[in-house]
């Protein structure tokens, strides 16, 4: 079987080639699609030009899959830098799977808002902030809403889509509705669940992935939904008749972080990359390119961007900021409650 033998050899060879470390190389894991184009153009190419380090971009896996991979490989997932969220940063730090950052390895860390830094812990470098926005179809809802109460309007019955509990947006929505109805973010969330029970009667269903959730508003079946504002902005820019807002009752941010697994092969280059991403110029490029907020208050961006994004101390103060490690311990209990009080209340 000479053909099979040659095939086998070539497979083994290609596989082996990957583990040969080149002089200065860096493997960055993040997302595909438009995200990939923007990060390439705004961050990775300038970084390669400046440092001469060649970057291999890996778009495999969601943040939770990436984290599972880091956990299963005990910190050696094959990539050096990964984009995850603050909750994973905390968990990974506690488990010793993620590298701790310091002012020495990542000097730009001190330029970030300290409150946000603290939330993400020692192992997460916050490179991007989004918030859970209220998104609606402008062709169906004429007057711009300002409150989560829009979702409860009788005329929106069957015109709302909700996330499943495995999308962290669900827990965040419970928290926001809890605060809105006199409860709090962590201990007394009963008012949030009561409100969610009512909201469940309005919804056409529950979807886990943001990509699927957005198809409902794209085809007009749904008129309003909670959605991360970065993706809402992408939809708006694509020409869809939608708009989004930060409801007046407050909302919860999605704190995205850069992380370096403890077993990363190119740790020095990884640190350089993280620091480069937090540079003032990079943050400005990212905020205007990917249309998200930044934890760096000193960036200069156009007013149109500032109006929509979290960029200043003021913006940060208006956010609801639950302790993420406590949130994480509450999730199993809330998940059961969600099954009983929310999913079963749905039609």
């Amino acid at each position, binding site marked *: 079987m000479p053909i099979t033998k040659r095939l086998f050899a070539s497979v*083994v060879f290609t*596989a082996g080639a*990957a583990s040969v470390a080149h002089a200065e190389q860096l493997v960055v894991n993040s997302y595909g699609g438009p995200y990939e184009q923007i990060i390439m153009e705004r961050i990775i190419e300038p970084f390669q030009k400046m440092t001469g380090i060649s970057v291999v*971009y890996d778009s495999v896996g969601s943040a939770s899959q990436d984290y*599972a991979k880091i956990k299963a490989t005990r910190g050696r997932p*094959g990539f050096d830098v990964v984009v995850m969220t603050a909750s994973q940063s905390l968990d990974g730090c506690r488990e010793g799977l993620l590298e701790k950052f310091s002012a020495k390895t990542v000097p730009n860390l001190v330029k970030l808002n300290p409150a946000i830094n603290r939330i993400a812990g020692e192992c997460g470098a916050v490179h991007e902030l989004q918030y859970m926005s209220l998104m609606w179809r402008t062709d169906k809802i004429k007057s711009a809403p300002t409150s989560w109460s829009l979702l409860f309007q009788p005329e929106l019955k069957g015109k709302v889509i909700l996330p499943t509990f495995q999308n962290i947006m669900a827990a965040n929505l419970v928290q926001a509705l809890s605060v809105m109805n006199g409860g709090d973010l962590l201990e007394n969330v009963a008012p949030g669940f009561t409100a969610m029970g009512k909201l469940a009667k309005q919804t056409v269903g529950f979807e886990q992935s943001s990509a699927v959730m957005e198809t409902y508003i794209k085809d007009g079946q749904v008129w309003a939904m909670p959605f991360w504002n970065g993706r809402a902005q992408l939809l708006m820019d694509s020409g869809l008749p939608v708009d989004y807002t930060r409801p007046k009752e407050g909302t919860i941010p999605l704190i995205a972080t850069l992380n370096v697994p403890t077993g990363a092969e190119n740790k020095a280059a990884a640190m350089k990359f993280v620091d480069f991403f937090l540079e003032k110029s990079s943050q400005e490029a990212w905020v205007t390119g990917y249309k998200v907020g930044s934890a760096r208050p000193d960036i200069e961006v156009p007013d149109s961007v500032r109006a929509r994004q979290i960029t200043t101390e003021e913006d940060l103060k208006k956010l609801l900021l639950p302790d993420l490690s406590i949130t994480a311990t509450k999730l199993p209990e809330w998940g059961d409650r969600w099954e009983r009080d929310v999913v079963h209340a749905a039609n």
Partner: protein
Amino acid sequence: MNRALSGLYWLSLTLILLFITLPLLVVVAASLSPSSAVTFAPSEWTFKWYGALWANKWLNPFLLSLKIALVVSFLSGVLGALAAYAIAYEKCPGSAAIMAFLLSPLAVPQIVKGVAIVLFLSSAGFYMLLGTPGLIAAHIVLTLPFAARMIATSIYNFDRNLDRAAQILGASKWQRIRHILLPLVKPGVFSGMTFAFIISFNNIPLSVFLVRPGQTTLPITVINYMEYSLDPVLAAVNVASLIFILATIFLFEKLGGFSAQIHGGSK
């Protein structure tokens, strides 16, 4: 009576085939849709999405998937035949338990297998096996049950009297395996290998954990692309790979002849 039965037979066959093709027709229609939303509105169909496939972005993953699937299919055929031989032909004591063990990977959700394999390779320090070699091994774990099971079924059905006749005529064991058993169970071996090929080529859940940066399989590329853009390029990728696999199966069928042996009148 006979006519009613045969009418019922053809009707059920047609309905079942309709059931099988319906969702695929929807997908094919979507791949030809001119707008970039995956909807079923074939007003003006276009092939432009197929043009987008001729890029390294899709070709490299395709080639990797192909290599892996070929190796997996070959090894599953060999290993599956060995296992099936011991269980169904030799009927060695405890064969039911061994068969249950061979099938047991099917009963574990793939995500658990994926995590477990990565965890084991990492704890044992076999980091160099993560990536394509690990992926091949993991896929074999997934495909071996099918291959073993299918080959075993065809050995169970194998007419032992032929074997006995040959034995009486003085054929050695190896001769009997080579000239009687193997040709007769070849269709089973090839259907096992075909399925191994398809399963490996389309696998997502195991591959997610085992692919290494820069070494991505086609389905993983598709699913990553999908997280942000649900456009018809995806449907085009699927239809293109569907056509490709169909061609492969015809090749397998020509080589192995799932049925040629029986209709060829060798019996």
